[in-house]
């Protein structure tokens, strides 16, 4: 057992090991509850809208979006960055808390990771669909070809994106799945129906929990964690470079990578918060996802939101201090004032101000409020991406080609589609996969429950 000081009780309600297994497997064993069906239906609905939008975009052209010669990136990229941000939660949780040996992560990381994987998939759709010639997309792969061969442009942040995001998807998926193997074994052994037994037998890769297995399992977990941690940083740094390496005023800024990473973790955590609150209520998992969990995340959010606030101020200060007229114009005439003030102030309020409420213990304790605030943060982070992408493009260097931007139904459809995909994905996870890491919970069960748990 790790010899780290354990803070507080992680699992409440004097659960025995068997209870743990039973509780967590229950949703998988039982039939789907009504709310699940409804939620899933909604998800599918959104997804269908999305599919229609995809069809229109591909069959008629990007022209069906609200873009123009000056604003060539719109919702597509905004949502791409937004999703990528959200996708940072899982890994941030598991990895960082794993490395710093924070035991309390155990009850949350599984769901967080699942969320990550789905979110990355959502994010991945945007670079694809926003291509003018998606059917030529394979050009972006540096494979040996008969055209010379001609290779891709390794200077392009977009190519870095391709590399980083595919790696990230792979890594987080692996991390997620490997973590689930022992739990699959549990489900397998507990399964009542033949079919389910067969399926989970297949999924569990024949895991039986032997000593050596556990040893290597933990080693692998540490390796994956250790390697993925820098990846988490790099992925969003690279996404930030999409903007930072360009010459557009408001984009061309060295603060972007750290600022984006923090932002990502911010949105990620808030999304985790949103999800976990829902899960613990609908599945009655209060004893696993305890108030102290919520409390902890809330505290982290306050901290990050402070950093975000600082970042915003720095940007504006630098815009003024550097004396670059284009930079100055973008920030002062097209963000603080101008056509897009709503987005700008929305961003400031949601990200930098509202989370400050978490200073108050009362509010941290009030689940409803926490839930609402977490939603606000998600919205705020979306605004942030909107501000960055749109304002810089609409009014850049030459006044002659300044323009404005507003999305079309199709663009919105693509976004809603990905939301639907996310909902469906998460719901399927909740229904068919262990949403809490059983073995890890067991690992922390005894030492954290004051030793007085009942044998049954």
């Amino acid at each position: 057992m790790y010899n780290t000081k354990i803070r507080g009780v992680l699992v409440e309600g004097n659960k025995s090991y068997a209870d743990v297994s039973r509780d967590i497997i229950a949703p998988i064993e039982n039939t789907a509850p009504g709310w699940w069906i409804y939620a899933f239906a909604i998800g599918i609905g959104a997804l269908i809208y999305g599919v229609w939008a995809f069809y229109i975009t591909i069959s008629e052209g990007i022209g069906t979006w609200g873009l123009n010669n000056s604003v060539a990136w719109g919702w597509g990229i905004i949502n791409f960055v937004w999703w990528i941000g959200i996708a940072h939660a899982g890994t941030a949780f598991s990895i960082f808390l794993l490395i710093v040996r924070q035991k309390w992560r155990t009850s949350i990381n599984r769901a967080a990771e699942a969320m990550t994987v789905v979110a990355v998939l959502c994010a991945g759709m945007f670079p694809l669909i926003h291509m003018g010639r998606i059917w030529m997309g394979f050009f972006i792969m540096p494979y040996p070809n008969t055209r010379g061969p001609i290779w891709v442009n390794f200077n392009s942040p977009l190519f870095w994106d391709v590399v980083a995001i595919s790696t990230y998807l792979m890594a987080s998926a692996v991390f997620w799945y490997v973590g689930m193997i022992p739990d699959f074994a549990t489900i397998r052994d507990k399964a009542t129906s033949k079919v389910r037994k067969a399926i989970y037998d297949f999924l569990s890769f024949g895991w039986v929990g032997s000593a050596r297995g556990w040893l290597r399992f933990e080693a692998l977990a540490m390796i994956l964690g250790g390697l993925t941690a820098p990846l988490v940083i790099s992925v969003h740094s690279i996404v930030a470079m999409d903007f930072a390496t360009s010459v557009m005023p408001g984009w061309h800024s060295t603060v972007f990578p750290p600022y984006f990473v923090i932002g990502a973790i911010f949105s990620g955590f808030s999304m985790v918060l949103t999800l976990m609150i829902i899960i613990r209520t609908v599945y009655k998992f209060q004893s696993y996802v305890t108030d102290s969990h919520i409390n902890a995340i809330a505290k982290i959010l306050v901290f990050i939101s402070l950093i975000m606030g600082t970042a915003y101020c720095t940007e504006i200060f630098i815009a003024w201090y550097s004396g670059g007229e284009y930079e100055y114009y973008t920030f002062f005439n097209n963000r603080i004032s101008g056509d897009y003030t709503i987005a700008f102030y929305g961003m400031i309020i949601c990200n930098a101000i509202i989370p400050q409420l978490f200073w108050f213990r009362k509010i941290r304790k009030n689940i409803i409020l926490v839930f609402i605030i977490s939603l606000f943060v998600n919205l705020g982070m979306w605004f942030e991406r909107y501000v960055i992408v749109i304002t810089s493009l609409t009014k850049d260097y030459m006044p002659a080609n300044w323009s404005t931007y507003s999305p079309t139904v199709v663009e919105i459809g693509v976004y809603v589609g990905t939301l639907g995909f996310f909902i469906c994905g998460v719901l399927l996870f909740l229904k068919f996969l262990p949403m809490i890491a059983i073995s890890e919970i067991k690992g922390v069960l005894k030492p954290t429950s004051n030793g007085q748990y009942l044998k049954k």
Partner: protein
Amino acid sequence: MKKYWRSIEEFEEDSKIEKLPEPEFPIEGLAEYEINKSGTTSRRDFLKMLGFGIGFVTFAASCENPINKAIPYLIKPENIIPGNANYYASTFFGGNDYCSVIVKTLEGRPIKIEGNELSSITAGGTNARVQASVLSLYDSFRIKTPLKNKQESTWEEVDADIIGKLDEIAKKGGKIVILSSSVISPSTQSIFEDFNRKYPTAEVIYYDSVSASGIIEANKKNFGQPYLPSYNFDKARLIVSFGADFLGNWLSPIEYTKQYSKNRKVSKTNPDMSRHVQFESTLTLTGSNADYRIPINPSQEAGTILNLYNRIAQKAGKAAITAPESTVNVDSLANELWAAKGKSLVVSGSNDVNIQLVVNDMNYLLGNYGKTINMNRPVYTKQGIDGQMDNLTKRMEKGEVEALLMYNVNPAYDYQNAEAFTDALTKTQLSISFSDTLNETAKLAGYVCPDCHYLESWNDAQPKRGVYSLTQPTINKLFDTRQAQESLLIWSATGGTTEAGENKVENLVEEDAYYAYIKKQWRSNLFPKQLKYAVFSEFWNHTLQAGVFTVSSVADMITRSNYPYVAVYSAANIADCVLKLKSPKAGERAIEFSLYESIGIGDGRQANNPWLQELPDPVSKVCWDNYLAISKTFADKNRLSLGDIVIVNDIFELPVLIQAGQADNTVSIALGYGRSSAGKVADGVGQNAFRLVQSKGTRLYSGNDIKLVPTGSNYILALTQTHHTLHGRDHVRTAMLKDYKENPSAGNEAHLIAEEKKQSMYSEREFKGHRWALAIDLNLCTGCSACVIACQAENNVAVIGRDEVRKKRIMHWIRIDRYYAEKAEDPDVYFQPIMCQQCDNAPCENVCPVSATQNSKEGLNDMIYNRCIGTRYCMNNCPYRVRRFNWYEYANNDKFDYNMNSSLGKMVLNPDVVVRTRGVAEKCSFCVQRIQEKKLGAKMENRELMDGEIKPACLQSCPADAIVFGDRNMPGSEVSKAFANERNYFLLEEVNTRPSVGYLTKIRNTESKKNET
């Protein structure tokens, strides 16, 4: 442009050129039959498209190559090498624009118009309408057979009918009138005479949609010559213009731009330039180039002119006349004028005889005649006397006119009271229109004998006395059309009443009767006037090669009675004029209006040309509509804002546009829009402002009784530029002339700093071969937008239509940014042509994931459409925003039903440039296809490339010679000189993109910033 010179042996070939494009002429009849039956193009055109080597409608996306046919000529014409272009000299004349042109044909298809540098008038210049005229050739709305009562008919039938009727009318002495726009073709005129000889009751009436009869009648009074004089803006040091848009639309804009730019070219060696003062009510192209521009209402014009006249008269020792007090103080201007005696020029765009008389007298007092104004070379491009037209309508109403032949006119559209005319037209027994499209007038005509497009026709032209040029066909007739001249020849020849037997019918029905006729004319009239060639055929062939022929003044003396104009000058009674000029009484401030021609559409005769419709107006940056231009103060007063729809005189509704520099109390509307029967592109676009034209003896294009009623509804104008000021940025760098004289790099200090600060992480690149670069002199660029259309024609740039333009998706590879500086009521206006800057450190290159854009060894920023996957990152990262994106499939898409959607319209495409597919980015390539062509040519001739040999389309079309292109590595090349010039700077130098396009600062000949003269 050396290419159209070819060996003497081939001369004879050229005269037959219109046969050459025919791969299989034996069954030409069949081909045309097919055309007539189905409006689509015939197999012949089909073959032209599949003609060997050109699958020129191309789709970069397609990755498999299907089995396609290769169809060689049956008989390869001597001088056509499949895949190589041929160039033929010809002449364009329409509306204001006379232009001697070179037509680029490929496998017998004209695909591009270029200026003819040998012309003494246009000297290689063109303008947007000339450039676009090639597309009008492939207009699917053209009439494909003669029509009889709107039913398709045959020439035989039509001829028989018409001749019959004409004879009958002539027998009973009924009146026959040929209503024609100004004819500058001597041969055509003499054909009119022949016609007159056959039908003695026939008479010719000239009618110009936008007339200059004010000047003509004034000159008649003063000189006894009912003609326009030729103006020499290049000789004038001080130009004062009262609402004459001589750089845009007035009389002969291309010629004047050439002349004007000669005097605006400043250099260290010659740091002088002319001064240009413009009084006008609407901000025209000319006004925006003026050094001083004073916005005045039309009603104030007379006052101002008379005051100026008075000041001059005083100095000249003449008695001053009572003049209404002028709102602007013209003393200093008068002084300057007097100082520049003989080197000044006063022009007025007004069509009021009296004003023109005063102006003439002023010029006379200033001794400008013979120096900056030349009555010896009258200009024939406008001959219409408005009185005659009004008169004609009256007679027609009375039924006095039995037969009306309408050549090149469209009064049902552009006559001020068209209703009266159309009613009157029904009273004629026989009405014939020669229109090549079924326009508003042709629809009403009993017979339509479709004329050929000028690229299918033979013709000659005498734009001004002693200066001639030829029009030759560059393609076989696409449809069953016939030149009006031929029709007239046939009709007037039947009886064989004419002298020499050579135009008997049977001789005439053959293809080139008119060609023979022109030759005959030239043999008898012009051949004697030159001493260079002994044999006529030689003379003829050389002229056909060059396209132009100028009678040396000596020869001119011999034939034409030439008199000392000053002697015959009979000053009109100015006082009398003053009485006639009723200036508005004080206090009465009715809303005034002034009508103008837009740069693209002109008087609307090419309105069905999508290129022109999509050409943004250089000043207002609006396309696909005309609008009501109002001033800011006026807008505030009446609480109007951009796009608010206003009912004008209860006739039509127009959206308003708040136009900087607009005279306070005046609204302006562009003519040429609101066609009802011009074709699917033009119909219903804008409103017909000709209906506001007033007739007071002459047709007046301004007035002071217009009623405006706001409707409260709003309309989105297709604007290509929505922000009009520089926001204090130095994209356009300017200096005043006097500062420039002191310090050549005045106004360009930022460049010096940038040069000092210029540094890079990486070692400088070495260009071992060429290094292409382009420089633009902002002082010469008038913003006329000829380059925009030239580029569109050369590079197959798509037309996307109004809605897409509204979405800011215009595809033009070269755009002209227009900025206002200083005060909104009369701003400094700056034009800045922007094309791809071909940066050495191109931001767009770094970000393309598939390196579909990269830098070539010759400093070009290559864009590879077939590699592009359309991430649009390059567009975002281009600080100049010169990259364009194919948001939709613009070719073969019914949503974009313009020239790239019909097999006929596709014939204008340039096979050297691929038609971009959906989802790829595109941009200016410095006309890389031309670079390659010339390089290859030099290699084949085993010689070095000459400086200025390569001419991108924009450069070639520029009437002001504002653009130079060449090799920066070549010592002493024009462009390297330009780059060394102190005035040269690069756009956004601080971003360190290292562009290959340099801009030379704009110099204004003003004493101080914005002070009234």
